[in-house]
């Protein structure tokens, strides 16, 4: 898990569904470890951007690079050993145990007829301890709470042993206790394990509190990227979200804090 990560570079990424252009000439480099937040209004292209990096949507050649290599040349398995991707909606129709779900994170390392080894078990256990889900291991995934399920999904992504983790709206369905808990876990992973975590977030205040670096999308383009102080400004936010806002400095963190006005 240590320092396996390679930088991600995105060069002139565009994406269209039919005639509608969703992403337009995106250029971003994720180089250092840290927590990166992708923010922007609904329909600004956050999910499509994450999908293009995770190759859930196959980008064109020579657009997204992992290290020096074009992402389109990786096999699924090889990519899964480098990038973990957690989509927004995960439903579990099948009632697996939490342990079985987390062990699925080891799939990219297993050959067809092989079964999970001791090492895979240890890795899964470790991932579950970090996310505080070890005590749930025998439970049925359908019977635990939303906050617990999200932690289990993070444990599975962690068991993948990648240096890069992409998550689409990981906290939008949770209450504040669990939002803070999940973002705290992800933040610690970037600090302790030197991971690159790229999250799309709806809640601008949470994004401002937790992220090291923000990317503000508007209509499929990167409007600005930088530290929360540089991005969360009255000018930027009211322009992109078309809403008047007040911005204060959060006295506890020194990060910007937004209060929207209603007209």
């Amino acid at each position, binding site marked *: 898990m240590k320092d396996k990560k390679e930088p991600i570079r995105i060069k002139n990424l565009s994406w269209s569904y039919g005639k509608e252009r969703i992403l337009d000439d995106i250029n971003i480099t994720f180089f250092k470890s840290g927590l990166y937040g992708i923010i922007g209004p609904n329909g600004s292209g956050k999910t499509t951007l994450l999908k293009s990096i*995770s*190759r*859930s949507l196959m980008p064109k050649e020579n657009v997204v690079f992992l290290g020096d290599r074009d992402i389109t040349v990786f*096999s*699924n*398995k*090889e*990519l*899964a*050993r480098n*990038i*973990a*991707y*957690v*989509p927004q909606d*995960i*439903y*579990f*129709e*099948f*009632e*697996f*145990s939490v*342990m*079985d*779900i987390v*062990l*699925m*994170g080891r*799939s*990219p390392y*297993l050959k*067809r*007829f092989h*079964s*999970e080894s001791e090492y895979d*078990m240890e890795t899964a256990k470790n991932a579950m301890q970090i996310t505080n889900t070890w005590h749930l*291991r*025998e439970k049925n995934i359908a019977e635990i709470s939303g906050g617990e399920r999200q932690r289990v999904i993070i444990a599975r992504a962690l068991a*993948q042993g990648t240096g890069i983790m992409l998550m689409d709206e990981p906290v939008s369905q949770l209450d504040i206790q669990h939002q803070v808990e999940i973002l705290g876990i992800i933040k610690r992973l970037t600090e302790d394990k030197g991971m690159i975590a790229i999250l799309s977030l709806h809640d601008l205040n949470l994004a401002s509190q937790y992220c090291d670096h923000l990317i503000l999308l508007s209509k499929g383009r990167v409007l600005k990227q930088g530290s929360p102080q540089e991005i969360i400004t009255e000018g930027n936010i009211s322009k992109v979200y078309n809403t008047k806002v007040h911005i204060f400095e959060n006295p506890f963190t020194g990060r910007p804090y937004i209060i929207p006005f209603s007209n």
Partner: protein
Amino acid sequence: MVFIKKRSHIKYMLLISIILLIVLMVLSATFGVADISFVNAVKILSRKLPLIGEFISSAGIDETHARIIVDLRLPRILLSALVGAGLAVVGAALQGMFKNPMADPYVLGISSGASLGATIALVVGGSYSFLGVGIITVFAFFGSVLTALCVYNIAKVGNKIPTITLLLSGIAVSFMLSAMVSIIMIFNRSHVEKIIFWTMGSVSAASWNQVGFLLPIILISVCTIISFSRDLNVMSTGEETAKSLGIEVEKVKKSIIFMCSVMVAACVSVSGVIGFVGLIVPHSIRLIVGYDHRVVLPFSAVGGAAFMVICDTIARSAVPPVEIPVGVITSIFGAPYFIYLLYKSKKKVF
């Protein structure tokens, strides 16, 4: 329960259930008009085994009985076991892949293709045979293979097979082919009875040739599908997630669809359309052993085989000399049992 902990336990249980299945098959061989005892049935059968066969005395064995068991009952029992195992595994795999509890082996329209093939063969003249296998079987097999190819290509978008398109094109093709069968029946009234009996499903025409045809197909396909168990597990938590976990989702889907189509085509072509096995056996197995495909698939194979052997024994011995089509028995006995399981567990099947 966590799979890895119960792995050795599961192997043990599977072995026991296979032994029970064999006992069940021998027991089934004693049922029928000719009264043959269990001990004699065991003797007759073990005489045929290599190595052990030499030491079995033939004392007290009526050679007519031996011929009834070896030439008539045994191929029929084996054939029903193979058909049951094949259909149940296909059902389990497709339910997992489509994440749809209503999926069964006939969802891709393969059975209608087989029906059309068999109908044409019955009307044209069903007495020819090809490499020892009846022309009806041959036509049904090619009918189903062609239908599977057709459904697959309709559903294909670029290099991908979206699940919903596949299900819908299967249903559409299935209705069209059924309509064609109806039209043929209307213009060939004299064959209607034979056609209807064929579509009800039966293994009464079983022969060693058919067993020889079905055995390798079922064995290879079942093992191949079981080898995809872990991939199916991951895919059942979402295709997008599965892809991000390194599973070659489209390749796995194509392989499973291919294996399932071949198996269903082979089963249907020897036995007609036997309903319900592929739907309820996997569900019942899941209610007992859980959702992990590494457990569900092998147990479905054994469970499907046992279920079909029981149903076919009832079909041929309940009201002699009348043969009840086994497809009718599977539904009459399968449906209430399934309702009982649902009621008892009060747990959602999916």
